[in-house]
């Protein structure tokens, strides 16, 4: 019986420490030594950063509602945002992260979309903004830039 009590105590301690570990505001691998790039600089010349490991910082102003697989960070310029996309399930950004100051790290990537996908993305963006969408208004294919995130650290404001 004494052994059983010991086992139960050990398991409970392990479970409690696991729960405490879950309270951390570090996501994935966190952030390491990469240089921080201002979002406005990044978006001014996005092609120049493709393939590079960088760090961006900004307020979290949108989080994926389905799987928490991306977070949008606000730029230092009003209206601009940059998306940090992580692998589904590997890192999960909670909705409570919105409004927090976030530093995220990863590889800056460019995805060249075809016309059909470009129209779908534009339609989705228009729907989110509550605007009407005219498919004929899309005349060129879009390149989608985003940070393929490996980790992030969130601090409450």
């Amino acid at each position, binding site marked *: 019986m004494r052994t059983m009590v010991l086992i139960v105590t050990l398991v409970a301690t392990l479970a409690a420490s696991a729960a405490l*570990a*879950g309270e951390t505001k570090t996501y994935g691998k966190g952030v390491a030594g990469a240089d921080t790039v201002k979002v406005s600089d990044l978006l001014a010349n996005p092609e120049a950063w493709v393939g590079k490991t960088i760090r961006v910082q900004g307020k979290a102003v949108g989080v994926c509602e*389905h*799987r928490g697989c991306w977070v949008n960070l606000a730029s230092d310029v*009003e209206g601009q945002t940059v998306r940090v996309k992580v692998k589904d399930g590997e890192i*999960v950004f909670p909705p*409570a992260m919105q409004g927090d100051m976030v530093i995220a790290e990863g590889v800056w990537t460019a995805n060249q979309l075809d016309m059909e996908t470009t129209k779908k993305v534009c339609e989705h963006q228009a729907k989110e903004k509550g605007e009407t969408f005219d498919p004929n208004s899309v005349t060129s294919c879009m390149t989608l830039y985003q940070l393929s995130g490996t980790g992030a650290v969130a601090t409450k404001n």
Partner: protein
Amino acid sequence: MRDFRKVCWTLHREIGFLVVGLTIVYAISGIAVNHAHHWDANYARVSEPVRIEPTGAGPTAEVEPLVLERLGLERAQVKTTWRASPEVLQVFLEGGGYEVNLVTGDGVRKGFRPRPLLFDLNFMHLNTGKGPWTVIADVYAGLLVVLALTGPLLVRGRKGLAGRGGVLMGVGIVLPVVYAIVMRFTR
């Protein structure tokens, strides 16, 4: 052989008791996250329209206090705000926020709260916290393997491996194998 079967009985019985709680956690959460494309398994969300007197699309420093006042919010409640576009101001609070069109005054209040119990079950199942829970989950998986291997050896005769038990075990093995083969050649 008799001693070996006795060991299997003991292992199966003791481990069986031990994993009841964890099995329920993983089973309930498994159903919930299997349907993640139908619903948000972690959070209950609300979204309702709001309307305030329009402030106009002036500088953020000027319109932000007006928006907060017209929404009935104290500054201390607000985590932060964000001018998403010239016409739209977002206000972030604990547990939700507002998105207001400054020109029309129309907006939406969004709220979320973790689903009672289910949020915690999913947190464990998906190992969101990583760390020590990884060890617990790995040990649990190992114990399930022990249960699977000892189970078929518990009963002899027509209800055991040589009879109905063997048929049921075969069905349980064939099901994932056939699915894997079909998926491999059709995807």
